[in-house]
């Protein structure tokens, strides 16, 4: 892809070294906390981007998979003593399995109505977990028993350890995306995102590819749900199925560069750092401010630079080093 061509291995290696060493340079846990959020939401964004960015199926209901992953591992841990490491995989599998019926319903609609039907499914799941106490603790939710430093139960004394878990998840998602992007599946996803009928005409089994990418995306999002709940030691339906999760998944990808490998990471970095700065300036009373800023950034991207931060960076690179023709949109090359 022009503009998002994987930077030379050296660059990725350097980035990895910085990412791994960064917590050591952080003066207070507050900063590590921000880094955890950046890694986690980048991860969710990369997962969303597979479906929403490459295949252009704009989901606003990824909280469904986040919540299912979170509840699966928590139920397994609290009720059956199963390690969240295993619970996390189980949660991913449950989320992927749930994506099949959800996809069967929602893929009947296209464009905005697909987005709305995904909102509806996530809401239904949240309401079910709120209403049916037999399912899992109802509206009160539950706390995760704190075992102190218990790595086997995904509990760590050091904040940095959580960061490395999130970073590892992000690395997995990036590698998965990278592999898909340069395989037949990447071409199929972009093609069906452009024109489903034309994709069918060249032999693309559109419903099947959509199913597959939805399942992969849901699986990864489910892992994020487990991690997040382990990190905050608490679960309830409003946290696990929060609409904000669905929104942020889409937002970071669009702001960073929809349908690009690094877009969600850049987008998350911008939004989370903005949010952290606001928090330190305004203290606790930032409720509306943060989302107001997010909304303004989103509008600016859509109206001025639909390729997002990736587009800005590509332009900057081209201006510095000459080379590539300026393009307003991401183009997929052979």
């Amino acid at each position, binding site marked *: 892809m022009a503009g998002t061509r994987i930077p030379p291995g050296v660059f990725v290696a350097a980035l990895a070294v910085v990412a791994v060493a960064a917590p050591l340079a952080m003066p207070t846990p507050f900063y590590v906390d921000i880094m955890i959020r950046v890694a986690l939401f980048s991860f969710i964004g990369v997962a969303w981007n597979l479906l929403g960015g490459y295949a*252009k199926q*704009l989901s*606003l209901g990824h909280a469904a998979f986040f919540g299912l992953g979170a509840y699966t591992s928590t139920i397994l841990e609290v009720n059956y003593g199963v390690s969240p490491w295993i619970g996390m995989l189980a949660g991913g599998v449950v989320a992927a399995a749930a994506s099949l019926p959800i996809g*069967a*319903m*929602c893929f*009947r*609609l*296209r*464009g*905005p*109505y697909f*987005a*709305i*039907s995904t*909102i*509806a*499914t996530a*809401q*239904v799941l949240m*309401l*079910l977990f*709120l*209403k049916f106490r037999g399912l899992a603790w109802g509206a009160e939710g539950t706390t995760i028993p704190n075992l102190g430093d218990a790595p086997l139960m995904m509990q760590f004394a050091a904040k940095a350890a959580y960061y490395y878990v999130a970073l590892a998840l992000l690395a997995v998602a990036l590698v998965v995306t990278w592999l898909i992007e340069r395989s037949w599946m990447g071409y199929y996803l972009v093609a069906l995102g452009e024109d489903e009928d034309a994709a069918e005409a060249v032999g693309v089994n559109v419903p099947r590819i959509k199913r597959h990418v939805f399942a992969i995306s849901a699986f990864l999002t489910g892992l994020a749900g487990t991690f997040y709940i382990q990190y905050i030691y608490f679960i309830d339906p409003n946290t696990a199925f929060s609409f904000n999760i669905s*929104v942020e998944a*889409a937002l970071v990808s*669009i702001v960073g560069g*929809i349908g690009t490998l690094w877009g969600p990471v850049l987008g998350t970095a911008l939004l989370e750092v903005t949010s952290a700065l606001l928090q330190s300036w305004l203290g606790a009373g930032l*409720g*509306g*401010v*943060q*989302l*107001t800023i*997010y*909304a*303004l950034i*989103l*509008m600016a991207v*859509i*109206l001025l630079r*639909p390729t997002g931060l990736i587009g800005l960076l590509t332009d900057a690179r081209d201006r510095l080093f000459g080379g590539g023709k300026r393009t307003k949109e991401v183009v997929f090359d052979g």
Partner: protein
Amino acid sequence: MLITLAQAVVNGLLIGGIYALVSIGVTLIFGVVKVVNFAQGEFVMLGMYVSFFLATRLGMDPIVSLVVSVPVLFVLGMLLQHYLIRRVLGLGDMPQIFLTFALSLLMMNVALMAFSANYRTIQTAYSNLALHFGGLYVPVPKLIAFAVAMGLSALLWVFLKTTDLGKAMRAAAQNYDVAMLMGINPDRVFAVAVGIAIALAGAAGSLLMAFYPAYPMVGQVFVLMAFVAVVLGTLGNVTGALIAGLMMGVAESLGIQFVGADSGMIVVFVMFLVTLMIRPNGLFGGWAR
């Protein structure tokens, strides 16, 4: 039992009138401009706050304040079309969905900062009045809201059927290319259509204010109902949206009555998803995907 059922249906129809107004707005914009307005609920919220402040500062009755909220929101709607929606027409799903989505986020959070998260209600002389028909209980503010909502819907229907501008909108909704060939000025038709749709949301807000609390996120309830109604009522079909809006109200009310107090939304969403499975094109006629 029968009276409980009848009461639930009446409750549902009364609130369904509001859902219908919001749904008609969504479907009008979608039909003519081909964009789904995710911020439609926030304009309901805005209408509510307009009426709230007119009531508390000037003592204006919320129903009377329609004469302010409707024209103000009509103008806002024209501006929305001219400055925002127009810039993403024909640009594909992502910008079209996320532009109005961002607007919705923006309006909610600016309202949160400006008005706080507190629930605001107002008292009118008729707030606690109710009519009794047999065993049925009909609160006056809701009845007025329902009647005005139906009146406005009828007015819109007459406008679409009889005026040149209304016919132009229907033509644009049915076949954009043909409408353009007929010499319709899309900028004007689009702006008026979006203006009307937003004015309807504002009217819904003013009517609601007589019996429903205003708060920054209040629009979310109504817009989700409207989306469901619009899909069920066949996209872009105004009459379908009206009927489906009423049906949503009844379905929600029956859910509350017979499944549990917090189950109204579950019933509605489940209905929505089931309908998608059996009739993805909506209940009222074909809409080609």
